[in-house]
């Protein structure tokens, strides 16, 4: 019999694995690192699950993913012990599994993802959390650990930059 805590973890946290993985992909820009970070984050979330009381479970989990991602980035240059020589057969690129519900052309999509990947991290994360994951500002504030006003101004500046990069800037008539 599963205990209530285990059932809660399965019910509240595990459904957000795709969102966690997506955020990690955008933060780390590497699928292998993203997988390791999400696994690490899930284990930490499980260990500290006692500390989760209320609030949005996805925001709580993604905050852990983000922290693990930042920690990972700081140390990843130092502790690569093994050399993955044959990564290509380990898993097919999962772009093929990405949901593709839009009419945006492939080339446009590549340009968009390139532009976002080129953003500074503090802009990139708010764009992903807002535009891709549809989070309200209050939850983004939880994940990123900054006040709502900061979320707003980062989002505003990020969108301005992207408008310039993507050519959606409206010409003055």
């Amino acid at each position, binding site marked *: *019999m*599963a*205990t209530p805590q*285990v*059932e809660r973890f399965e019910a509240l946290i595990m459904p957000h*694995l*795709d969102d*966690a*993985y*997506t955020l990690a*992909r955008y933060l780390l820009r590497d699928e*292998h690192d993203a*997988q*390791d970070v*999400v*696994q690490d984050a*899930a*284990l930490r979330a499980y*260990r500290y699950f*006692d500390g989760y009381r209320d609030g949005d479970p996805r925001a709580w989990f993604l905050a852990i993913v983000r922290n693990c991602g930042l920690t990972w980035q700081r140390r990843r240059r130092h502790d690569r012990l*093994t*050399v*993955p*020589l*044959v*990564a290509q*057969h*380990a*898993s097919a690129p*999962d*772009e093929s*599994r*990405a*949901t593709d519900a*839009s*009419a*945006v052309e492939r080339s*446009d*999509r590549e*340009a*968009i*993802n390139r532009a*976002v990947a080129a953003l500074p991290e503090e802009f990139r994360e708010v*764009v*992903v959390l*807002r*535009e*891709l994951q549809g989070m*309200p*500002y209050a939850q983004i504030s939880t994940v990123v650990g900054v006040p709502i006003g900061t979320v707003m101004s980062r*989002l*505003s500046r990020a*969108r301005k930059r*992207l*408008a310039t990069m*993507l050519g*959606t800037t*409206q010409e*003055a*008539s």
Partner: protein
Amino acid sequence: MQCAECLDLLNPYHDGELLPEELAEVRDHLALCPECTRAYDELVATSHLLQDGLVRYAAPDVLNARIRSALAHEDATPLRPAFASPRWLRLAAAGLLIAVTSSLATWGTVRVRGASRTARDEILATHVRSLMPGHLMDVASNNQHNVKPWFNGRVDLSPPVPALDSTGFVLDGGRLDYVGGRTVAAIVYLRRQHVVNVFSWPEAGDDSDPSVVTTQGYHLVNWRTGGVAFWAASDLNQTELSEFVALFRHGGAEAKR
């Protein structure tokens, strides 16, 4: 409302983060001001482009399996005292072991004894884990004379590493793995991008012929030769894997302690 104030509120306006009275003020201002309307149109166009164009990634199945397996492992391992009462841990472990894909859950707590169910499950879990990016190889080489010596002093046998390239099974490297509480040798071969892991470790007992078990789409072949237990694991079809095992045994009969 002044333009500067309106421009400051365009993002929260677009994102539905304004209170009703602010929202009405922005809307009224936009109705009158072409400058702010142009800025708003730009914002909306950018936002929609992002929403449509950003890639939403699905967590790979193997990541999901790895997490559930690690959670089960976590529960089987004593944690910091602050975390939980032993009773809670036991219940949690029991719960997860049931809830989790059954065969992935048991490694870490079992001992391998012959072709028992737990050994089979553990080999499968180890094989799946090895398919994770970066986890396949410690020594990457298609030369048996590089791979074989690499194990010297790392495991307590010198695993056979036959060269089978001419038969379509290409040596890809080796690594240390952890099965049944001991460090074992894993030799990796490839056939058309299918991975074959061959695990081996010293094990007392008579020689035994290969026996095949199939679980979750993987075939596992187990045999024992000269006091060494072997497991070959792959998603190759059974015929090809049996062919591989025959070639491997033929080429690797010189396994020594």
